[in-house]
């Protein structure tokens, strides 16, 4: 997929002719989630998990070196694929929250399995491998980090969500702020606290 067309589809003008047509199933799930339907969230999670993995397993090729960017691109590509660009601003916020959780699950699963699996098909898991390698280094061990993050969620759920979004889905401060419905400043201060908490939990 050409990324320039991908970008144009992200233009969230609700009055744009290009976006006419019925909302996709995913968009409907997002709206149900927005109305507080938790079942929709679970269903969406499963869908995102599968789709993210499928995309990661080969369809997506990137020239970029920065793996965090790749994670972000992966999430956004998934969004496009599942909604056909028909989501609205609010839908994308819900999407990002669920996608970040799915992304975390995928990467941690991948990190767990990495030691056991033989890399039989060269290049097949290349993207996830490279993302996981980088996150392993940054987190002082992804599996332990995931457990620590679970601990943080019990102390302060919003902080854990924020780490999911920023660390696993590679979202920027601004994107995270929008998705969580808080200010950028709040995201920055939350990030500082979360990072210190996680480091002390891991040391």
């Amino acid at each position, binding site marked *: 997929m050409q*990324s*320039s067309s991908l*970008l*144009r589809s*992200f*233009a*969230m*003008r609700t009055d744009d002719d290009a976006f006419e047509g019925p909302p996709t199933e995913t968009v409907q799930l997002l709206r149900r989630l927005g109305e507080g339907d938790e079942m929709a969230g679970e269903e969406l999670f499963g869908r995102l998990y599968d789709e993210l993995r499928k995309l990661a397993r080969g369809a997506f090729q990137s020239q*970029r070196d*920065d793996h*965090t*960017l790749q994670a*972000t*691109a992966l999430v*956004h590509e998934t969004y496009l694929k599942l909604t056909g660009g028909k989501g609205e*601003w609010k839908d*994308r916020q819900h999407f990002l929250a669920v996608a970040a959780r799915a992304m975390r699950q995928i990467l941690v699963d991948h990190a767990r399995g990495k030691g056991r699996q033989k890399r039989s098909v060269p290049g097949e898991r290349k993207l996830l491998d490279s993302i996981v390698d980088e996150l392993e*280094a*940054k*987190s*002082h061990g992804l599996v332990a980090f995931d457990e620590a993050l679970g601990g943080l969620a019990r*102390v*302060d759920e919003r902080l854990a969500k924020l*780490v999911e979004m*920023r*660390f696993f889905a*590679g*979202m*920027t*401060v*601004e*994107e995270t*702020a*929008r998705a969580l*419905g808080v*200010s*950028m*400043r709040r995201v*920055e*201060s939350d990030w*500082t*606290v979360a*990072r*210190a*908490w*996680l*480091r*002390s939990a891991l*040391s």
Partner: protein
Amino acid sequence: MTAHEPEWEEVRRIFEAARALPSAERADFLRTECRGDEALERAVLRLLAADREDSFLGLDEPAAAGDAQAPERLGPIEILGELGRGGMGVVFRGYEPELDRDVAVKCLLGHLSLDEAQVERFRREAQAVARLHHPSIVPIHFVGQDRGHHFFAMEFLPGPDLGSELERMKLGQAPQRLPAHRTTASNGRIAELVADVADALQYAHDQGIVHRDIKPSNLIFGADGRITVVDFGLAQVESLGSLTRTDVIQGSPHYMSPEQARIASQKKVDHRTDVYSLGVVLYELLTLKRPFEGETFQEIFESIASREPPLARRLNPDVPRDLETICSVAMAKEPSERYATAGAFAADLRRFVEHRAILAKPPAALRRAWRAVLRHRKLVTTGLVGVGALVLGSWMRGELRVRATYPRLALEVRGRAGAVRDDAAGRVSVRRIDLLNGALGPPEPIGHLPLTNVRVEPGVYRVVVSFDNGAYAELFRDLPADGDLHELVAWLEPPETTAHEGMVAFEPTTFAPTEDECPNAGRPVELERFWLDRFEVTNAQYRRFLLATETPPPSSWADFLPGWEAEGLEVETGDGRTVAFDELPAVGMTWEDARAFAEWAGKRLPTHAELGHAGRGSELRLWPWADQTRANLGNVNGVAYWLGTSRRELWQLYLQNASPVGAQPEAATADGVHDLLGNVAELTETMHVGPKGAVDRQWFYALGGAWDAARTSQDLGNDAHSLANLGARGASCDTGLRCAKSAFPH
């Protein structure tokens, strides 16, 4: 382990407040905040110890620099946080789980660990103190080395130290461990305290150890309230031989003895240097003033060597005459005029406390001795000039920086065509900016043109150049304590009656935003009369600036707009249309280039409050335009892009979505200011204020949202306060500027 689990909200609150403080103040703060709740204090300390920027969860966005990296463990000790640092060592707070005790750990600074001589000095200190067993000298638990870190563990003293007690009293606050200043109890308590220190020094002197760096911050209250001497880092140990000359001047200048300051004469420094320095501490405790101050180290040393300090009673009439005498004798210029031993000093202080006659002679005799010194002043001063350079070199890496590190200002005046105008006459003043609310201090004159080298206190200023022809320039500058010469350019604008054409005047007012997002939330800002551009700065205007000043263009112009130097470009937007580039608002410049543009135009960037007031008015309206029922005005289109979006795509999004400036007259304010909400966000000269008032000097507010903002109040709330980076990357594809100017700059 206790089962008590501290409240998370409380832990977080104290952590965030503490991290905004300098590390040296954190221990005191924690003690006050945690009120003896040890589990709470430990939880906060763990967070503080874990709080630093490094590869852990490293993200590619810039963040404020934290403390230098602390080890997580040193031998058997868990490191919990930094207590303070000096020229050669860092002192950490630590916890030794095996013995369940708090400790203070002094660790040699990393880069010094490679220097054998420094390691030797460090070990010498440890050995020296380890030999001392006295209730008023901090005991050493053990000396160690761990992964290249040399360290020793001492008893942890909860403090506060006398330095912070003095700071508190100087600010008019109540000290924690001392009676309030100028109360009946205070003189006696001070005398007892200093006598205890003098006893400890006498003991150390008896063991052949001279401390040589007695100062308030090295005198710390222990858990039992007893004053304790710490930091024998500069100690001279008789049995270990003398130290080199540069070592000797590593004390703190204000508390140094004349013989320490006069080392060029190779005068021997003995135990009486400690008597002198403790005398200075006594003087400061009694008067809340240091006897000798100066702009530079050299000036301080000259004062110490040759000047007579005001008698203590002149500064504080409540000081008893005997105590003043004791103080003067301890601080005598000539070691032979002082108390011969620290013990004698202590004994006289105790006589004073017990209302007995003191042994010291009244200061009249001393003043005669001082006059004798003064007669030789010229000689002494000459000797000191050479020392000055030596001392400065040695001190730059030291812990105490005085005004030698003040930044310096030079001004170059240029005419419109860029030619240097040496003939320009005028005066220059500075107005200090309160970083928390952007308020301007009163103008302080610093000199006349030409201005080549004027020292100012470090700070963030608006430098105002008032030319004699009536024009004036306003230059926002962050002048850190770097001692550097900052060369500013002021553009001499010919006085024109039409100078404010294209600008709208705003009358003096108070801007008091209520949202939690503002740097000055809850703190009203007084605005003086100012002018604000009607329109955002266009590409045509910005191009003229680039060509006139030979400033490199924004990277997006350089990469995607070949031939940008030409006027009247019709540019393809990437979706089949073309736009008249000149009319679009300029974006993509760095914050510094935006400031340079404003100065070149004879203006400045607006402040957060000015832009906020222009858009929202004193009634804090939601939209800039007058018709508050119409929410859908303005170029606010919610066009989204992502971190993964390429720069070329961002450039195209800008071309497709930004409107020519002033294209939406219905969205202008009643005052006639266009595009305050939407189109492009606008840079201000207001620095980002983080949680708990921490100012981030690398980030500036950019207000007003842009074409990529979504039309929700939440999103506008965020966008209206998004931050622009000062770094070389440049502002983004949605951030530009408009200019302001003060009506009366002073």
